């Protein structure tokens, strides 16, 4: 399966995001690399999920703008945006009794219409999405009978079926055990190989270092570091973000960072 997607660039200019009167993000600038996996990391409450919601237009900015390939996302019609940017929020919930294939077919919604309810394209894309997520054998199983990892792959498959160049995921692995997490991370890597740009909020820094090409570290609504994980992540950054002391070693096989000897920093209390 080599569906190649045109490179999509997403940027934020002087972005302000607020809940009622409380500003969470104040004047943030950001350019996401196209065709890569970008992980947004940071401690709880640092505004990483809010930033993702802003990038996906779930949250309207109180100032500044988000540009998708140069177009202000606030001005794009909903369907047009859904054909260019797919989103998987946290704790996604489906109507009772829906099967895997039925869920994935909902991903075709932005491409369909009243007189275009099921085309050869739809069939092909849903088939590809099932394959990509390794769910062919489970296509007709109800979602609620699946394991957590399988269910999360089904949700990601739904966003795959949207056929967007850009995929935004909010903590896609947060409720999963180790094996299921790796299942999902490998699917994400696989999707990046097809040319998609992927932005994911992660709370787990070691996984972010292992699977992301680009890292954005946030603290108090600001970006404190961004770049390739192996150059950006330092013991000093880990201390600044999480109040944790650690040693970082390069993995002898892959070169990615290993976290060793983690403990609370003495001066955090």
């Amino acid at each position, binding site marked *: *399966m080599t569906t190649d997607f045109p490179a999509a660039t997403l940027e934020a200019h002087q972005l302000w995001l607020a809940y009622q009167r409380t500003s969470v993000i104040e004047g943030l600038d950001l350019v996401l690399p196209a065709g890569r996996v970008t992980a947004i990391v940071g401690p709880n409450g640092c505004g990483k999920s809010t930033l993702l*919601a802003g990038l*996906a*237009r*779930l949250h309207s900015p109180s100032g500044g703008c988000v540009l998708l390939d140069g177009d202000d996302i606030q001005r794009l*019609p*909903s*369907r*047009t*945006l*859904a*054909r260019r940017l*797919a*989103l*998987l*929020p946290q*704790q*996604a*919930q*489906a*109507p*009772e*009794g*829906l099967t895997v*294939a*039925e869920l994935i*077919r*909902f*991903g075709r*919604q*932005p491409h*369909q219409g*009243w*007189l*275009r*309810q*099921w*085309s*050869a394209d739809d*069939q*092909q894309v*849903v*088939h*590809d999405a*099932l394959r990509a997520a390794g769910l*062919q054998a489970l*296509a*007709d199983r109800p979602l609620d009978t699946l394991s957590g990892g399988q269910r999360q792959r089904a949700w990601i498959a739904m*966003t795959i079926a*949207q056929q967007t160049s850009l995929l935004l995921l909010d903590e896609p692995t947060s409720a999963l055990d180790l094996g299921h997490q790796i299942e999902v991370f490998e699917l994400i890597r696989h999707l990046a190989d097809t040319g998609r740009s992927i932005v994911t909020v992660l709370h787990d820094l070691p996984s972010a270092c292992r699977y992301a090409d680009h890292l954005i570290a946030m603290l108090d609504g600001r970006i404190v570091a961004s770049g390739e994980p192996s150059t950006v992540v330092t013991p000093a950054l880990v201390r600044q973000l999480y109040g944790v002391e650690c040693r970082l070693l390069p993995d002898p096989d892959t070169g990615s960072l290993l976290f060793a000897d983690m403990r609370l920093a003495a001066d955090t209390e």
Partner: protein
Amino acid sequence: MSWIAVGGEKNKVGHVPISENLSDVQRSGVFAPPGHWRLGWYWAGRRREASILIDRRAFLANVGLGVALILTSLIYLCTGTVAIAPASTLRALFSEAEPTVAFVVNDLRLPRMLAAWLTGAAFAVAGCLMQTLARNRLATPGIIGIDNGATAFAVASVVGLGVSLAPPAMALTGAATATALTFGLAGGGGTRGYRFIVAGIGVGAVFGAATQLLMARVAIDVANAAYPWTVGTLNARPTGTMTVLAIGLGIGVVLSLRLSRALSTMRFSEAIAQGLGISLRRSRLQALSLAVSLTALAVAVAGPVGMVGLIGPEIARHLSSPRGVPVIGSALAGALVMTVSDGVGRLLLSPIELPVGIVTAIVGGPYLLWILLRQGGSGNV
């Protein structure tokens, strides 16, 4: 132009032919997803294509409900203080019959049956829209006070509070007022969750009390004239209002069907629906206006028979597949429930007539309790 209909039969095994070579899928044409019939059209040398999917289970459910409705309606027309044989009834409907039979069937029972169909369908479609919108099966117009708002305003016009608008217009005004109040009181939370329902119950109670107050302050014969509005009855409904309802229901069902794709996506959480390209604000406004208008028109004919808005969609959802929002199914089930209820109300204590609103409340009350008390019943649609 060629006509190609691909049935679902070829497709028992999986959702598309499982094949390692993807070009096989393309070569073998388009298959309907499981549980569907697909109707496809090609024109301009197969360069342009249109396709419609019909959900098999929903379709069969609708056929079943339609047949049940027709049979029930036939019984409805045959029974009453004067029993008429089915054959004579059919003759009266479709050809010539003796004048007394024709009078009873065509002039007395048929209009009332049509009123049951129209109001039942309108209440149930409105209920289906509201439940889907709020993602909660308790959020029907009857429960969140829209019925009561419509009733209070209609009663105000009947008892002559110096307002000369016709009952349908008053009912519409009342329904819109109740909805606006409910929204205002529920605050920014929109149509989600219990806050909206609780606000609606409060608003409904206020309007219910207002209705009682209006009735208490007028002469007994005026109060008598207004009484049917407060319980819901199909006895001797105004024909002009029926015509308005018939037209409104037709338009309402077509618009609801247009909206049903968005509605089925709105059953997911908000973020997902938005991510799939649904403009939530617009779709919600459309669904809400439709539900309010349909409820108001139905109240203007039958009074507040809001339980149908709860039971109708529930039957339809139970019979249909979880893939879609059963607009047509709700309409048919609502008409069926209304016809059965009114038939029972006419016959049970004959010659005394029970108003249909009371029958549906007697059936609906326990049902409501069941929804609320059922184990693990989150109330989600």
